[in-house]
Protein backbone atom coordinates (compact mmCIF):
# COMPACT_ATOMS: atom_id res chain seq x y z
CA UNK A 1 0.00 0.00 0.00
CA UNK A 2 1.05 3.57 -0.60
CA UNK A 3 -0.49 6.80 0.66
CA UNK A 4 0.41 10.13 -0.91
CA UNK A 5 -1.50 12.37 1.48
CA UNK A 6 -0.20 11.11 4.85
CA UNK A 7 3.50 11.02 5.79
CA UNK A 8 4.87 7.53 6.42
CA UNK A 9 6.16 6.82 9.95
CA UNK A 10 8.61 4.23 11.18
CA UNK A 11 6.87 1.38 13.02
CA UNK A 12 7.73 1.60 16.74
CA UNK A 13 8.91 -2.00 16.56
CA UNK A 14 11.98 -0.86 14.61
CA UNK A 15 14.93 1.40 15.20
CA UNK A 16 16.94 2.78 12.29
CA UNK A 17 20.61 3.44 12.79
CA UNK A 18 23.90 3.67 10.94
CA UNK A 19 26.12 0.70 11.75
CA UNK A 20 29.79 1.45 11.22
CA UNK A 21 30.78 -2.23 11.41
CA UNK A 22 28.24 -3.13 8.69
CA UNK A 23 28.91 0.02 6.65
CA UNK A 24 25.18 0.50 6.11
CA UNK A 25 21.92 1.56 7.72
CA UNK A 26 20.20 -1.19 9.66
CA UNK A 27 16.74 -1.71 11.11
CA UNK A 28 16.93 -3.17 14.58
CA UNK A 29 14.02 -4.99 16.20
CA UNK A 30 13.63 -7.51 19.05
CA UNK A 31 16.56 -9.89 18.69
CA UNK A 32 17.02 -9.10 15.00
CA UNK A 33 18.57 -6.85 12.40
CA UNK A 34 17.87 -6.03 8.75
CA UNK A 35 20.72 -4.58 6.71
CA UNK A 36 19.54 -1.92 4.27
CA UNK A 37 21.24 -1.29 0.95
CA UNK A 38 22.30 2.24 0.03
CA UNK A 39 19.08 3.45 -1.54
CA UNK A 40 16.86 1.79 1.09
CA UNK A 41 18.90 3.51 3.79
CA UNK A 42 18.52 6.89 2.08
CA UNK A 43 14.74 6.50 1.87
CA UNK A 44 14.24 5.12 5.39
CA UNK A 45 16.17 8.05 6.87
CA UNK A 46 13.44 10.30 5.51
CA UNK A 47 10.58 8.23 6.91
CA UNK A 48 10.00 10.34 10.01
CA UNK A 49 6.28 11.01 10.22
CA UNK A 50 6.87 14.50 8.76
CA UNK A 51 7.86 14.01 5.12
CA UNK A 52 5.13 13.00 2.70
CA UNK A 53 6.14 10.74 -0.17
CA UNK A 54 6.40 13.70 -2.55
CA UNK A 55 8.81 15.38 -0.09
CA UNK A 56 10.96 12.25 0.10
CA UNK A 57 11.17 12.07 -3.70
CA UNK A 58 12.03 15.78 -3.92
CA UNK A 59 14.78 15.56 -1.35
CA UNK A 60 16.34 12.50 -2.98
CA UNK A 61 16.11 13.93 -6.51
CA UNK A 62 18.00 17.00 -5.29
CA UNK A 63 20.54 14.93 -3.36
CA UNK A 64 21.25 12.61 -6.32
CA UNK A 65 20.81 14.79 -9.41
CA UNK A 66 22.65 12.31 -11.64
CA UNK A 67 20.42 9.37 -10.72
CA UNK A 68 17.47 10.46 -12.88
CA UNK A 69 13.91 10.70 -11.54
CA UNK A 70 13.66 8.48 -8.45
CA UNK A 71 9.84 8.46 -8.18
CA UNK A 72 9.38 4.85 -9.26
CA UNK A 73 12.24 3.59 -7.08
CA UNK A 74 10.86 5.32 -4.00
CA UNK A 75 7.35 4.02 -4.65
CA UNK A 76 8.57 0.50 -5.18
CA UNK A 77 10.60 0.53 -1.98
CA UNK A 78 7.84 2.10 0.14
CA UNK A 79 5.34 -0.53 -0.99
CA UNK A 80 7.77 -3.30 0.00
CA UNK A 81 8.58 -1.58 3.32
CA UNK A 82 4.87 -1.27 4.12
CA UNK A 83 4.35 -4.98 3.43
CA UNK A 84 7.21 -5.75 5.80
CA UNK A 85 5.50 -3.52 8.42
CA UNK A 86 8.57 -1.27 8.69
CA UNK A 87 6.33 1.77 8.27
CA UNK A 88 2.72 2.85 8.50
CA UNK A 89 0.51 5.75 7.39
CA UNK A 90 -1.59 7.45 10.05
Amino acid at each position, binding site marked *: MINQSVPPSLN*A*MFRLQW*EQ*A*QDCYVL*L*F*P*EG*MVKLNGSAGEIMQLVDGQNKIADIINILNKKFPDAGDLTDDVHEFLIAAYDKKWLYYE
Partner: protein
Amino acid sequence: MIKNGFIMNNETQIKVGPPLWLLAELTYDCPLHCPYCSNPTELGDTKDELNTEQWLDVFTQARAMGAVQLGFSGGEPLLRKDLEEMVKHSRELGFYTNLITSGIGLTEKRIAKLKVAGLDHIQISFQGADPEMNDIIAGRGNAFEQKFKMAQSVKAQGYPMVLNFVISKQNISQVEDIMRLSCQLNADYVELATAQYYGWAYDNRDHLLPSQQQLIDAEKIVNEFRDKQQGKGPQFIFVTPDYFEVRPKACMNGWGSTFLTIAPDGSALPCHSAKMLPLKFPNVKDKSISDIWQQDFSFNRFRGDSWMPQPCQSCDEKEKDFGGCRCQAFMMTGDMDKTDPVCSKSPDHHLIQEAIERAKNPKNPLLERVNKRSIKDADIVQIKL
Protein backbone atom coordinates in the same frame (compact mmCIF):
# COMPACT_ATOMS: atom_id res chain seq x y z
CA MET B 1 46.90 -19.48 12.83
CA ILE B 2 45.64 -15.93 12.58
CA LYS B 3 46.76 -13.67 9.81
CA ASN B 4 45.35 -10.26 8.96
CA GLY B 5 42.08 -10.99 10.70
CA PHE B 6 41.62 -14.27 8.88
CA ILE B 7 41.77 -17.62 10.54
CA MET B 8 43.89 -19.92 8.48
CA ASN B 9 43.67 -23.65 8.64
CA ASN B 10 44.54 -26.43 6.29
CA GLU B 11 41.64 -26.31 3.90
CA THR B 12 39.59 -23.24 4.44
CA GLN B 13 40.01 -19.59 5.06
CA ILE B 14 37.28 -18.04 7.17
CA LYS B 15 36.77 -14.40 7.84
CA VAL B 16 35.57 -13.90 11.38
CA GLY B 17 32.81 -11.32 11.45
CA PRO B 18 31.86 -9.46 14.62
CA PRO B 19 29.90 -11.14 17.44
CA LEU B 20 26.64 -9.49 16.35
CA TRP B 21 24.65 -11.02 19.19
CA LEU B 22 25.89 -10.59 22.73
CA LEU B 23 24.05 -12.50 25.44
CA ALA B 24 24.83 -11.21 28.91
CA GLU B 25 23.81 -13.79 31.50
CA LEU B 26 23.87 -11.43 34.45
CA THR B 27 23.15 -14.06 37.10
CA TYR B 28 22.10 -17.71 37.25
CA ASP B 29 19.93 -16.92 40.25
CA CYS B 30 16.21 -17.18 39.48
CA PRO B 31 12.96 -17.02 41.44
CA LEU B 32 11.44 -19.79 39.29
CA HIS B 33 12.14 -23.53 39.17
CA CYS B 34 11.19 -24.52 35.64
CA PRO B 35 12.26 -28.08 34.84
CA TYR B 36 12.95 -27.08 31.20
CA CYS B 37 15.65 -24.57 32.17
CA SER B 38 18.70 -24.73 29.93
CA ASN B 39 21.03 -23.23 32.55
CA PRO B 40 23.82 -25.53 33.72
CA THR B 41 22.74 -27.89 36.50
CA GLU B 42 25.93 -26.90 38.32
CA LEU B 43 25.05 -23.27 38.99
CA GLY B 44 27.93 -21.09 40.02
CA ASP B 45 28.13 -19.08 43.19
CA THR B 46 26.64 -15.60 42.94
CA LYS B 47 29.71 -14.14 44.69
CA ASP B 48 31.74 -14.93 41.52
CA GLU B 49 29.47 -12.78 39.35
CA LEU B 50 30.98 -9.91 37.36
CA ASN B 51 30.50 -6.53 39.01
CA THR B 52 28.92 -3.50 37.35
CA GLU B 53 32.17 -2.05 36.11
CA GLN B 54 33.24 -5.35 34.54
CA TRP B 55 29.94 -5.71 32.70
CA LEU B 56 30.05 -2.13 31.41
CA ASP B 57 33.53 -2.80 30.06
CA VAL B 58 32.32 -5.98 28.34
CA PHE B 59 29.59 -3.98 26.57
CA THR B 60 32.00 -1.23 25.53
CA GLN B 61 34.48 -3.73 24.08
CA ALA B 62 31.88 -5.82 22.26
CA ARG B 63 30.18 -2.78 20.77
CA ALA B 64 33.53 -1.51 19.45
CA MET B 65 33.87 -4.84 17.62
CA GLY B 66 30.46 -4.38 15.97
CA ALA B 67 28.12 -6.22 18.34
CA VAL B 68 24.64 -4.74 17.93
CA GLN B 69 22.05 -6.91 19.70
CA LEU B 70 22.44 -7.22 23.46
CA GLY B 71 20.32 -9.59 25.51
CA PHE B 72 20.16 -9.20 29.28
CA SER B 73 19.40 -12.68 30.46
CA GLY B 74 20.12 -15.15 33.25
CA GLY B 75 18.72 -16.65 35.45
CA GLU B 76 16.62 -13.63 36.19
CA PRO B 77 18.41 -10.42 35.15
CA LEU B 78 16.04 -8.27 37.26
CA LEU B 79 17.81 -9.61 40.34
CA ARG B 80 20.70 -7.31 39.40
CA LYS B 81 20.08 -3.94 41.02
CA ASP B 82 22.49 -2.35 38.51
CA LEU B 83 20.43 -3.44 35.49
CA GLU B 84 19.26 0.11 34.75
CA GLU B 85 22.84 1.35 34.74
CA MET B 86 23.85 -1.40 32.33
CA VAL B 87 20.90 -0.65 30.04
CA LYS B 88 21.72 3.05 29.99
CA HIS B 89 25.39 2.47 29.18
CA SER B 90 24.77 -0.07 26.43
CA ARG B 91 21.96 1.93 24.85
CA GLU B 92 24.24 4.97 24.70
CA LEU B 93 26.79 2.78 22.92
CA GLY B 94 24.15 2.05 20.24
CA PHE B 95 23.10 -1.47 21.23
CA TYR B 96 19.56 -2.67 20.67
CA THR B 97 18.77 -3.73 24.22
CA ASN B 98 16.61 -6.76 25.00
CA LEU B 99 15.48 -7.74 28.49
CA ILE B 100 14.74 -11.45 28.71
CA THR B 101 12.82 -11.95 31.93
CA SER B 102 10.42 -14.18 33.84
CA GLY B 103 8.53 -11.03 34.82
CA ILE B 104 9.02 -11.88 38.49
CA GLY B 105 10.48 -8.85 40.22
CA LEU B 106 9.14 -6.47 37.59
CA THR B 107 7.01 -3.53 38.71
CA GLU B 108 5.35 -0.74 36.77
CA LYS B 109 7.89 1.62 38.25
CA ARG B 110 10.84 -0.51 37.17
CA ILE B 111 9.42 -0.87 33.64
CA ALA B 112 9.29 2.94 33.53
CA LYS B 113 12.82 3.31 34.90
CA LEU B 114 14.16 0.88 32.32
CA LYS B 115 12.38 2.85 29.59
CA VAL B 116 14.10 6.04 30.74
CA ALA B 117 17.42 4.15 30.73
CA GLY B 118 16.76 3.32 27.05
CA LEU B 119 15.60 -0.30 27.08
CA ASP B 120 14.29 -1.22 23.62
CA HIS B 121 12.33 -4.43 24.17
CA ILE B 122 11.06 -6.76 26.86
CA GLN B 123 10.57 -10.48 26.44
CA ILE B 124 8.49 -12.21 29.12
CA SER B 125 8.38 -15.96 29.55
CA PHE B 126 5.17 -17.78 30.41
CA GLN B 127 4.92 -21.43 31.38
CA GLY B 128 1.26 -22.00 30.50
CA ALA B 129 -2.04 -20.41 29.46
CA ASP B 130 -3.58 -20.25 32.93
CA PRO B 131 -2.43 -19.82 36.55
CA GLU B 132 -2.79 -23.49 37.38
CA MET B 133 -0.53 -24.83 34.63
CA ASN B 134 1.84 -21.87 34.67
CA ASP B 135 2.54 -21.89 38.38
CA ILE B 136 3.00 -25.66 38.63
CA ILE B 137 5.68 -25.61 35.91
CA ALA B 138 7.26 -22.43 37.26
CA GLY B 139 7.27 -23.84 40.78
CA ARG B 140 6.01 -20.57 42.23
CA GLY B 141 2.59 -19.48 43.34
CA ASN B 142 0.98 -16.36 41.78
CA ALA B 143 3.60 -16.28 39.03
CA PHE B 144 0.99 -16.19 36.26
CA GLU B 145 -0.88 -13.27 37.80
CA GLN B 146 2.36 -11.29 38.10
CA LYS B 147 3.42 -12.05 34.51
CA PHE B 148 -0.02 -11.15 33.17
CA LYS B 149 -0.04 -7.78 34.94
CA MET B 150 3.50 -6.96 33.88
CA ALA B 151 2.86 -7.91 30.25
CA GLN B 152 -0.06 -5.46 30.24
CA SER B 153 2.15 -2.77 31.71
CA VAL B 154 4.98 -3.43 29.23
CA LYS B 155 2.59 -2.81 26.34
CA ALA B 156 0.92 0.13 28.07
CA GLN B 157 4.33 1.75 28.40
CA GLY B 158 4.98 1.44 24.69
CA TYR B 159 7.56 -1.32 24.44
CA PRO B 160 7.68 -3.92 21.71
CA MET B 161 6.89 -7.16 23.56
CA VAL B 162 7.82 -10.74 22.83
CA LEU B 163 6.21 -13.55 24.78
CA ASN B 164 8.10 -16.82 25.08
CA PHE B 165 6.30 -20.04 25.88
CA VAL B 166 8.51 -23.07 26.29
CA ILE B 167 6.36 -25.92 25.04
CA SER B 168 6.68 -29.38 26.52
CA LYS B 169 4.59 -32.46 27.06
CA GLN B 170 3.23 -30.68 30.14
CA ASN B 171 1.56 -27.75 28.34
CA ILE B 172 1.39 -28.66 24.64
CA SER B 173 -2.36 -29.31 24.87
CA GLN B 174 -2.80 -25.62 25.77
CA VAL B 175 -1.39 -24.26 22.51
CA GLU B 176 -4.66 -22.71 21.37
CA ASP B 177 -5.29 -21.10 24.77
CA ILE B 178 -1.71 -19.82 24.77
CA MET B 179 -2.30 -18.17 21.40
CA ARG B 180 -5.53 -16.56 22.66
CA LEU B 181 -3.72 -15.29 25.74
CA SER B 182 -1.03 -13.78 23.51
CA CYS B 183 -3.68 -11.93 21.50
CA GLN B 184 -5.33 -10.71 24.69
CA LEU B 185 -1.96 -9.35 25.89
CA ASN B 186 -1.35 -7.69 22.55
CA ALA B 187 2.09 -9.28 22.09
CA ASP B 188 4.09 -8.41 19.00
CA TYR B 189 5.97 -11.69 18.57
CA VAL B 190 5.25 -14.98 20.31
CA GLU B 191 7.69 -17.84 20.47
CA LEU B 192 6.03 -21.21 20.86
CA ALA B 193 9.32 -22.96 21.37
CA THR B 194 9.49 -26.61 22.28
CA ALA B 195 12.10 -27.09 24.97
CA GLN B 196 15.68 -27.59 23.87
CA TYR B 197 17.28 -30.38 25.82
CA TYR B 198 20.23 -28.82 27.60
CA GLY B 199 21.00 -28.31 31.29
CA TRP B 200 18.03 -29.15 33.50
CA ALA B 201 15.92 -29.90 30.44
CA TYR B 202 18.29 -32.69 29.38
CA ASP B 203 17.90 -34.41 32.74
CA ASN B 204 14.11 -33.96 32.50
CA ARG B 205 13.83 -34.84 28.83
CA ASP B 206 11.60 -37.88 29.30
CA HIS B 207 9.02 -35.68 31.01
CA LEU B 208 9.25 -32.83 28.49
CA LEU B 209 9.69 -34.24 24.98
CA PRO B 210 6.27 -34.39 23.29
CA SER B 211 5.34 -37.25 21.03
CA GLN B 212 5.36 -36.81 17.27
CA GLN B 213 1.56 -36.97 17.24
CA GLN B 214 1.30 -34.23 19.87
CA LEU B 215 3.55 -32.04 17.72
CA ILE B 216 1.57 -32.70 14.56
CA ASP B 217 -1.65 -31.81 16.40
CA ALA B 218 -0.13 -28.65 17.89
CA GLU B 219 1.25 -27.48 14.55
CA LYS B 220 -2.15 -27.96 12.92
CA ILE B 221 -3.76 -25.81 15.62
CA VAL B 222 -1.09 -23.12 15.19
CA ASN B 223 -1.58 -23.03 11.41
CA GLU B 224 -5.38 -22.84 11.67
CA PHE B 225 -5.10 -20.04 14.22
CA ARG B 226 -2.69 -18.13 11.97
CA ASP B 227 -5.07 -18.43 9.01
CA LYS B 228 -7.82 -16.78 11.06
CA GLN B 229 -5.56 -13.87 12.05
CA GLN B 230 -5.56 -12.33 8.54
CA GLY B 231 -2.29 -10.53 9.16
CA LYS B 232 -3.49 -9.02 12.46
CA GLY B 233 -2.28 -9.59 16.00
CA PRO B 234 0.89 -11.27 17.19
CA GLN B 235 3.29 -13.01 14.89
CA PHE B 236 3.59 -16.61 16.11
CA ILE B 237 6.80 -18.55 15.71
CA PHE B 238 6.44 -22.29 16.26
CA VAL B 239 9.72 -24.07 16.93
CA THR B 240 9.64 -27.87 16.81
CA PRO B 241 12.26 -29.94 18.64
CA ASP B 242 15.14 -31.05 16.45
CA TYR B 243 14.72 -34.61 17.73
CA PHE B 244 12.06 -35.19 15.07
CA GLU B 245 14.13 -33.74 12.23
CA VAL B 246 16.41 -35.64 9.86
CA ARG B 247 18.99 -32.86 9.63
CA PRO B 248 20.47 -30.99 12.60
CA LYS B 249 19.89 -27.33 13.34
CA ALA B 250 22.52 -24.81 12.24
CA CYS B 251 23.33 -24.36 15.90
CA MET B 252 24.17 -20.75 16.84
CA ASN B 253 24.42 -19.99 13.11
CA GLY B 254 27.79 -21.76 13.25
CA TRP B 255 30.21 -21.94 16.17
CA GLY B 256 31.83 -18.58 16.89
CA SER B 257 30.17 -16.90 13.90
CA THR B 258 27.53 -14.61 15.39
CA PHE B 259 26.84 -15.34 19.06
CA LEU B 260 28.87 -14.56 22.13
CA THR B 261 27.59 -15.46 25.57
CA ILE B 262 29.14 -14.08 28.70
CA ALA B 263 28.22 -16.24 31.71
CA PRO B 264 27.65 -14.67 35.16
CA ASP B 265 31.23 -15.41 36.24
CA GLY B 266 32.70 -13.80 33.10
CA SER B 267 33.29 -17.01 31.11
CA ALA B 268 33.06 -16.28 27.40
CA LEU B 269 31.18 -18.97 25.48
CA PRO B 270 30.13 -19.52 21.84
CA CYS B 271 26.69 -20.47 23.19
CA HIS B 272 25.02 -20.56 26.59
CA SER B 273 25.42 -24.34 26.94
CA ALA B 274 29.00 -24.71 25.78
CA LYS B 275 30.47 -24.77 29.26
CA MET B 276 29.61 -28.46 29.50
CA LEU B 277 32.16 -29.25 26.78
CA PRO B 278 35.65 -30.49 27.65
CA LEU B 279 37.24 -27.22 26.50
CA LYS B 280 38.87 -24.49 28.50
CA PHE B 281 36.90 -21.31 27.86
CA PRO B 282 38.44 -17.89 28.42
CA ASN B 283 37.19 -15.33 30.93
CA VAL B 284 36.66 -11.62 30.34
CA LYS B 285 38.46 -11.00 33.63
CA ASP B 286 41.68 -12.25 31.99
CA LYS B 287 41.43 -11.43 28.28
CA SER B 288 39.95 -8.79 26.01
CA ILE B 289 36.78 -9.65 24.06
CA SER B 290 38.70 -9.12 20.84
CA ASP B 291 41.40 -11.63 21.84
CA ILE B 292 38.74 -14.08 22.93
CA TRP B 293 36.69 -13.80 19.76
CA GLN B 294 39.51 -13.62 17.25
CA GLN B 295 42.18 -15.80 18.76
CA ASP B 296 41.11 -18.05 21.59
CA PHE B 297 41.57 -21.75 20.88
CA SER B 298 38.08 -22.62 22.12
CA PHE B 299 36.38 -20.16 19.75
CA ASN B 300 38.41 -21.36 16.78
CA ARG B 301 37.94 -25.02 17.69
CA PHE B 302 34.81 -25.60 15.54
CA ARG B 303 35.06 -22.78 13.02
CA GLY B 304 35.27 -23.81 9.40
CA ASP B 305 35.00 -27.47 8.45
CA SER B 306 38.45 -28.98 8.92
CA TRP B 307 37.39 -30.33 12.34
CA MET B 308 34.42 -32.20 10.88
CA PRO B 309 34.17 -35.98 11.01
CA GLN B 310 32.39 -38.15 8.49
CA PRO B 311 29.62 -38.14 7.37
CA CYS B 312 29.79 -34.30 7.67
CA GLN B 313 33.16 -33.90 5.94
CA SER B 314 31.91 -35.20 2.61
CA CYS B 315 28.32 -33.97 3.01
CA ASP B 316 27.09 -31.33 0.59
CA GLU B 317 24.89 -29.84 3.36
CA LYS B 318 27.75 -29.08 5.76
CA GLU B 319 27.60 -25.38 4.88
CA LYS B 320 23.93 -25.36 5.88
CA ASP B 321 24.04 -26.93 9.34
CA PHE B 322 27.76 -26.85 10.24
CA GLY B 323 27.48 -30.41 11.58
CA GLY B 324 24.78 -29.43 14.07
CA CYS B 325 25.15 -28.84 17.78
CA ARG B 326 28.45 -29.63 19.54
CA CYS B 327 26.79 -29.85 22.95
CA GLN B 328 24.18 -32.29 21.69
CA ALA B 329 26.89 -34.47 20.12
CA PHE B 330 28.82 -34.40 23.39
CA MET B 331 25.83 -35.08 25.67
CA MET B 332 24.57 -38.00 23.62
CA THR B 333 27.76 -39.64 22.34
CA GLY B 334 30.40 -38.40 24.79
CA ASP B 335 32.41 -36.99 21.85
CA MET B 336 32.00 -33.31 20.94
CA ASP B 337 33.64 -33.88 17.54
CA LYS B 338 30.96 -36.21 16.26
CA THR B 339 28.12 -35.41 13.90
CA ASP B 340 25.01 -34.22 15.75
CA PRO B 341 23.00 -37.45 16.31
CA VAL B 342 19.88 -35.67 15.05
CA CYS B 343 21.22 -36.18 11.51
CA SER B 344 19.80 -39.33 9.96
CA LYS B 345 23.21 -39.92 8.37
CA SER B 346 24.88 -40.01 11.80
CA PRO B 347 25.93 -43.48 13.03
CA ASP B 348 24.54 -42.36 16.41
CA HIS B 349 21.07 -41.40 15.16
CA HIS B 350 19.57 -44.39 17.01
CA LEU B 351 20.29 -42.50 20.28
CA ILE B 352 17.70 -39.90 19.29
CA GLN B 353 15.15 -42.54 18.38
CA GLU B 354 15.75 -44.29 21.70
CA ALA B 355 15.26 -40.99 23.55
CA ILE B 356 11.91 -40.46 21.78
CA GLU B 357 10.87 -43.98 22.81
CA ARG B 358 11.95 -43.47 26.43
CA ALA B 359 9.97 -40.24 26.67
CA LYS B 360 6.78 -42.22 26.11
CA ASN B 361 7.20 -43.80 29.56
CA PRO B 362 9.31 -41.65 31.87
CA LYS B 363 10.85 -43.67 34.69
CA ASN B 364 13.07 -41.16 36.49
CA PRO B 365 11.44 -38.46 38.63
CA LEU B 366 10.95 -34.91 37.32
CA LEU B 367 13.57 -32.60 38.78
CA GLU B 368 12.68 -29.07 39.74
CA ARG B 369 15.43 -26.57 39.03
CA VAL B 370 16.98 -25.75 42.38
CA ASN B 371 18.42 -22.38 43.34
CA LYS B 372 20.78 -22.17 46.22
CA ARG B 373 19.11 -19.08 47.63
CA SER B 374 15.53 -19.92 46.83
CA ILE B 375 14.76 -23.06 48.76
CA LYS B 376 12.28 -21.15 50.88
CA ASP B 377 10.35 -20.05 47.79
CA ALA B 378 9.84 -23.67 46.81
CA ASP B 379 8.45 -24.47 50.24
CA ILE B 380 5.98 -21.60 50.00
CA VAL B 381 4.76 -22.79 46.60
CA GLN B 382 3.90 -26.21 47.95
CA ILE B 383 1.62 -24.58 50.49
CA LYS B 384 0.02 -22.14 48.05
CA LEU B 385 -0.72 -24.75 45.42
